[in-house]
């Protein structure tokens, strides 16, 4: 048996938790705090503004002994990326409702290569291990733009999450 992986997004004040799936165009950066990739064109980000924060977690289910050493990075950047900056944070334990003002949580430039060591917490610790079905700590993302950002759809950026399983 093996662990089953899904990205989980939390949105709203309560929050509502939605399993997004394992891969594909699972979410978009938008001017609304929800958990669907579908309505990005009706909730565009005005050049110079920020997207709503996106609150993600790794959701592990199935049968496994341990899952740990979670590493997260942006494996493919937007192209072109002019006027687009992605900020992130991977050790947030408690959810707060997403904002579109400049995030005070996602404040660090996202890594663009495998960080090599855990950069996403589990249970509030980078050394934490899941020993049963559960979640990582929150990965908080925000797309921040400048007026130099081109109008229209951006390309797809790709994010990779890697973990050790035993």
């Amino acid at each position, binding site marked *: 048996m093996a662990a089953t992986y899904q990205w989980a997004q939390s949105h709203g004040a309560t929050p509502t938790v939605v399993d997004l799936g394992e891969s594909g165009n699972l979410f978009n950066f938008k001017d609304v705090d929800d958990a669907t990739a579908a309505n990005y064109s009706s909730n565009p980000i005005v050049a110079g503004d920020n997207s709503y924060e996106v609150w993600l977690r790794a959701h592990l289910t199935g049968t496994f002994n*341990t899952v740990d050493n979670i590493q997260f990075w942006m494996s493919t950047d937007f192209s072109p990326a002019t006027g687009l900056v992605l900020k992130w944070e991977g050790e947030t334990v408690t959810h707060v409702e997403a904002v579109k003002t400049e995030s005070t949580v996602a404040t660090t430039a996202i890594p663009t290569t495998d960080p090599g*060591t855990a950069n996403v*917490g589990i*249970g509030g*610790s980078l050394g*934490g*291990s899941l*020993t049963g*079905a*559960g979640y990582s700590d929150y990965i908080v993302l925000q797309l921040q733009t400048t007026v130099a950002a081109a109008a229209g759809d951006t390309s797809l950026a790709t994010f990779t999450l890697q973990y050790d399983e035993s």
Partner: protein
Amino acid sequence: MADITDKEGKNIKISSKDANFKEALRKPTVMVDDKIKAEKGDFSVVHVFDGKNVGEFYESKLQETPYPVTYRRSIKQLSEQYGTDPKLGGVLLRKDGSNVFNFVPLDSSKDKVAKITVVEAKK
């Protein structure tokens, strides 16, 4: 720089970017449950690795609900993370009231400034 000598007389130093950790650990004995005040907050020593067994690990259950999480790290894993020699040991600290851990590795050094004896707490 806080250079120290362990009980066997090896020259070692505390490798940490946090001066508070270095200063707090610069004493004759470091034991489990020792309290350390650092810029990042108050920490407690939860394990002391003497480096004799590189497979030695520290394990602690962090939470049972809403899902089970365990912290488990060996001196080998921790030393690799810091690029230090696991055979020289190190001190594992936990921030009080949180699940944040901080490893303070010991590293080789030629100069000796202070002495330290690394021992496990006797319970």
